[in-house]
């Protein structure tokens, strides 16, 4: 089976210094992959590479088997949507305006807005439960609402792959869970950068990055061992089973 998105020994260098080295990854259709690692470990850079926004200095990224470098921006945007870490605007746009931007790769001067675009936008607004706020100004939204609108925009793009760069950042716990549940409901292949290891447990696989290198890749329960957490995050971790059979809980302590 051809992986839907594939990195083959991909590296990225800025001014000659490699900040991401030899990342190889085969993403299967429909799976959810979590990216974890300390600040500055290269998560956002890997997101940029996978989104085709950055060019690998070595290696290659392939989208549905085809080298990303040979695809046009519009072809990429029809298959893959990115929710970046912080995307803000000073324009006085409404929620609906922002979601409608997701239709951009499907439209052109000779392909005007149509009924199917209205449907896509309506479905996206429903998916994030923002339909009742479609007319609200961007400036009046809370952080959680903005994140939901960004996800709706990505949804309206009708992608097969969704890349989310720390979508739960700066959100209260209620909204963090709401966003993760929302993303789980969307039936697309997802790569999601995360800080909270509890959230990572919800993914089918996780990739652990440190200093631009992949340290581990696999199902979270196999990968996130106390030993690995100590090595990567420099904290002592204890894994406590959930009393009613749910996902386990981590207890952390600074290394003595």
């Amino acid at each position, binding site marked *: 089976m051809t992986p839907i998105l594939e990195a083959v020994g991909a590296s990225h260098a800025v001014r000659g210094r490699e900040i991401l080295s030899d990342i190889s990854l085969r993403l299967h259709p429909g799976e959810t992959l979590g990216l974890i690692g300390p600040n500055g470990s290269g998560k956002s850079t890997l997101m940029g590479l996978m*989104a085709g*926004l950055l060019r690998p200095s070595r290696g290659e990224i392939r989208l549905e088997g085809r080298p990303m470098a040979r695809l*046009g*921006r*519009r*072809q*990429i*945007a*029809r298959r893959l*949507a*990115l929710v*970046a870490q912080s*995307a*803000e*605007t*000073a*324009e*006085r*746009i409404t929620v*609906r*305006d*922002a979601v*409608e*931007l*997701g239709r*951009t*790769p499907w*439209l*052109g*001067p000779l392909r*005007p*807005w*149509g*009924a199917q*675009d*209205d449907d896509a*936008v*309506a479905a996206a607004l429903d998916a994030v439960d923002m339909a009742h706020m*479609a007319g609200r100004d961007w400036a009046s939204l809370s952080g959680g609402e903005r994140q939901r609108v960004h996800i709706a925009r990505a949804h309206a*793009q009708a992608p097969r792959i969704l890349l989310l760069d720390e979508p739960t950042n700066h959100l209260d716990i209620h909204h963090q869970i709401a966003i993760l549940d929302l993303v789980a409901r969307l039936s697309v292949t997802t790569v999601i950068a995360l800080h909270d290891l509890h959230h990572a447990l919800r993914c089918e696989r996780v990739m652990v990055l440190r200093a631009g290198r992949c340290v581990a890749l696999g199902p979270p329960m196999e990968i996130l061992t106390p030993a690995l957490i100590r090595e990567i995050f420099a904290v002592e971790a204890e894994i406590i089973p959930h009393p009613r059979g749910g996902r386990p809980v981590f207890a952390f302590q600074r290394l003595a």
Partner: protein
Amino acid sequence: MRARAATRSTGRNRGWLWLAPAVLVAALLFGTAVGETRIPLATVIEVLAVKAGLGSAALDPIDASVIWHYRLSRAVVAACGGASLALSGLILQALLRNPLAEPYLLGISAGASTGAVTVAVAGIGAGLLSMSAGAFAGALTAFALVAALARAAGGGTGMRGAGVIILAGIAGSQMFNALTALIIAQSASAEQARGIMFWLLGNLSGVRWPDSWVAVPMAALALGVGLWHARTLDAFAFGAESAASLGIDLRRTQALLIGTASLATAIMVSIAGAIGFVGLVVPHAMRILVGPRHARLVPATALAGAVFLVLSDVVSRIVIPGQVLPIGVITALVGAPAFAVVMIRGRQR
């Protein structure tokens, strides 16, 4: 709710666009009628009708000449220039995500002036087209320098980045204005120097019909490029990276759109000198009136820019009896306070 949304999205609700030609024609007639000697509107319409071959009334040859050769050509070029400059500002604001971006503040006008003056003084070809080419080269050079300087100074998006590129624009403007002054001092005769200085302030006095052969196609081109790329300009709402992830080819788009904005500025500078602030004031006013969608914003900005410059030109002719002020003085008197308002509002965000 859905029906309203559909109308908004497709831009079908453009009834006001039918008013646009009427408003433009009214402004042109007004601009033609008002001046040092006021000519009755009836006479203006009569002369235009005869010139258009729609009648054969006996005309006062002086009135006819003033109306046809001086006033109307001037009003038409003012309208095209206003539309071109306003669209340049709109495009630059969208692409740079900078509410203060416009050709004058970014030093593009100053660069174009240097280019045009170089050609004029050196006498290369010495025509409107060669001056326009010189101005275009100067405009692109200035933008490249300003962009490189802003980049080196660590300007990104956001209000800090906005400040950095405007500072770079000021530095660029000063440098190119100094170069222009140097070229004039070194090479121009006293007679040339006086003419150039007056022209540099932004002046439509010398405009005749041949200028419109360049100005009209330029305004049409800027409007066409703007309309064709309306959705592209929308896609920059959340920044260049976001636009790229929405399928916009950044390099191609930026080259084409910034090239168009620079060309429009260069053409206007070679015809009428550096007219400031049109590109700042008009797009902001239109955003308030018609909203942030470029499918509406582009035609609205073109129309308002055209009307604004025609009216500014009228004001420049009548504000001090017996004396014509450079039009750049009028636009700056309106534009500088508007600039202050945008800056203060930007800080509050």
